[in-house]
């Protein structure tokens, strides 16, 4: 189970630690060559504008889009969710996303850093609540008909799935709880 973790910028080492603890083999992905070796992909939190720029300069954008179109399973957290959405509001006008899951998001929709928060919420299919960390998090404003909402906070979707694409507006790598990653690995490798 070689799981690529996009390592252009952000909290990628945290994801690698969680994946390792679950018995998967994380590989940091910075180039198109790195991407060839992976069977699934994590797009971590960080700054989506920075990552978007680096996706172009690294030459990763086109091959990554291609792999996803061929069904590469992807987990996107926070900035990763933004990069996988269809439409992004309050982003930069030149910011481009992969449209890998049929949702629209508002960047920094919960506010600035002083509004960042932790919260507990139930997740469909998990026993017991999950403790989520939301940091300048995006708000999901539209969910397409084929998207399954797995968790909400105050009616707003925070964890969504479509096919083998799983996205969260919170940071499951920050909670010391591997259940969201475990869910992703099941999704990616159970077939």
């Amino acid at each position, binding site marked *: 189970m070689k799981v690529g973790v996009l*390592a*252009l*910028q*952000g*909290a*990628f*080492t*945290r994801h690698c630690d969680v994946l390792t603890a679950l018995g998967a083999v994380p590989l940091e992905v*910075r180039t198109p060559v790195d991407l060839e070796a992976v069977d699934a992909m994590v797009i971590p*939190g*960080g*700054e989506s*504008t*920075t990552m978007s*720029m*680096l996706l172009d*300069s*690294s030459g990763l954008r086109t091959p990554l889009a291609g792999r996803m179109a061929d069904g590469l399973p992807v987990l996107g957290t*926070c*900035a990763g969710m933004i990069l996988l959405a269809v439409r992004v509001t*309050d*982003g*930069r006008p030149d910011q481009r996303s992969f449209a890998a899951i049929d949702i629209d998001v508002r*960047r*920094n929709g919960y*506010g*600035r*850093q*002083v*509004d*960042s*928060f*932790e*919260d*507990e*919420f139930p997740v469909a299919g998990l026993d017991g609540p999950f403790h989520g*960390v*939301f*940091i*300048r998090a995006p708000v999901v404003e539209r969910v397409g008909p084929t998207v399954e909402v797995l968790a909400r*906070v*105050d009616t707003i979707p925070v964890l969504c799935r479509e096919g083998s694409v799983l996205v969260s507006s919170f*940071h499951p790598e*920050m909670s010391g709880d591997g259940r969201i990653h475990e869910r992703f690995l099941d999704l990616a490798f159970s077939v």
Partner: protein
Amino acid sequence: MSDVTRATGTQLVKRGLAEMLKGGVIMDVVDPAQAKIAEDAGATAVMALERVPSDIRRDGGVARMSDPEMILGIQEVVTIPVMAKARIGHFAEAQILQALDVDYVDESEVLTPADEAHHIDKWAFDVPFVCGATNLGEALRRISEGACLIRSKGEAGTGNIVEAVRHLRSILGDIRRITLADQAELFEWAKRLQAPLPLVQEIAETGELPVPMFCAGGIATPADASLVMQLGAQAVFVGSGIFKSDDPAPRARAIVETVTNFRDAAMVAKVSRGLGDAMPGLEMGSLETRLADRGW
């Protein structure tokens, strides 16, 4: 349910933003136009200040928190986090910055200290703080006061990397030595570092600082950024190095690409080509004021 369990301003949330800034470049900017250039170049955050350190050094006088109007102007034009500096010990400036919704407060030696004995009690704030450190003891004292991110100080406004290297090596070298110490030696380490014992014990166990550590002070070229990342910094602050250079935008972008690919010398060579002149540098011996000596 969520109304009961929701919490803001926690250590996890404050340190979390620092985690998100890892592998990135935080750039000093003095106006909205520079902030835009920084964001376009891929900065993960901007530091809003009235004068970059090299100008503070040249002009002298008392350097204070920036005009709120200027900070608001910068917040309006960029989508990335906006940080701003408060004077060491000046908790009223920090309160104002928190009221302005800045994303991180830098209690910074680049500004003129307001208190010669006390740093700000950073636990009293919801906004996270970054503080500078020249050695491990200083870093741990700042963390015990509530700092959620440490930056090695270097010597701001010089374009000279030598102090940043000294401070990084001092902090990371002592961390490595502490991991080899036995239980009895940890008490002595705490005494020598003038740092709380539980933090020293935590380092002995984990082998790293309890919060992320970035590097600041003297980074002028992509090679400088690569050097400090290879030494163990997790991200970089670039102050005068960008907007005091010949051609800021391409240099800013080159440093961003370097921090992502800092171990790939061929890549760093490629992005370093044709950047024009770096900022003029200063020898340490020629300095009247050592900013890094500020802080206690």
